[in-house]
């Protein structure tokens, strides 16, 4: 009998839930750069639509804890753990944590590498936010 290790398939589809369009877009693009299929939700209500949509495949949820909607990020994570335990949920508080999490996901995803450091992503988000405020 063979004992060859069969690696688990790497996740390939990520649902991002973030109410800040700048952060959501930049992190989503970073993950697309890592060959993930990315679904963007602006709030938890949209996330539930995505999770209930049979044509959408989702392996991982990256959710900002302060995401708005009829349920907050913690409640979404709790619902997923109870109802869709096969999904991995990563909660992030702020762009720095989200970018770091995205970089980690890149290393376990289709390309098994991060295209560049998460600090560059955070710097980019900060520059965009600064130009929005000026």
């Amino acid at each position, binding site marked *: 009998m063979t004992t060859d290790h069969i690696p688990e398939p790497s996740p390939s589809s990520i649902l991002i839930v973030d109410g800040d*369009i700048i952060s959501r877009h930049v992190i989503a*693009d970073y993950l697309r750069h890592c060959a993930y299929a990315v*679904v*963007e*939700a602006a709030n938890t209500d949209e996330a539930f*639509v995505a999770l209930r949509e049979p044509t959408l495949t989702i392996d991982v949820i990256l959710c900002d804890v302060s995401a708005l909607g009829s349920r907050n990020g913690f409640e979404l994570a709790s619902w997923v753990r109870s109802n869709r335990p096969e999904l991995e949920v990563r909660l992030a508080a702020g762009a720095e944590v989200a970018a770091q999490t995205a970089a980690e996901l890149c290393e376990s995803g289709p390309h098994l590498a991060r295209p560049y450091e998460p600090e*560059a992503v955070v710097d*980019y988000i900060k520059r965009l936010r600064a130009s929005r405020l000026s």
Partner: protein
Amino acid sequence: MSPSPKSPGGQDFAALRKCILVVEDEFLIRFMLSDELRDAGYQVIEACDATEAVSVLKTVQPDLIISDVRMPGPLDGMGLLALVRETTPALPVIIISGHLHPAQALIEGATQFVAKPYLMEAVVDAVQKVLGKTL
């Protein structure tokens, strides 16, 4: 699009693809339309309503806006169009609606009009008419 991070190989994050801001409050429609446009080779920013779109426009200059008309919030698609015509008159806007008469959208400054319900190919065709076939 604003300057973006470089990969270690020096490749631009957003590359040089043309950037489209999609403004649509119906989540699945926005997802499918954005996905289709990315498959066609465009960089896409997804906004869930006109307020998010205005927030983006303070930061980046897309090459094109595609906007639904009826959306929740203080600003609808025609309000967004009026704002864009005031601030960046040369920025092309494609209006998508199932209620509005095409002539009204064009009179108020839309570059193209696509009636709902639509085939995704119809939107990509309209985009290519506005931006040209070169990505």
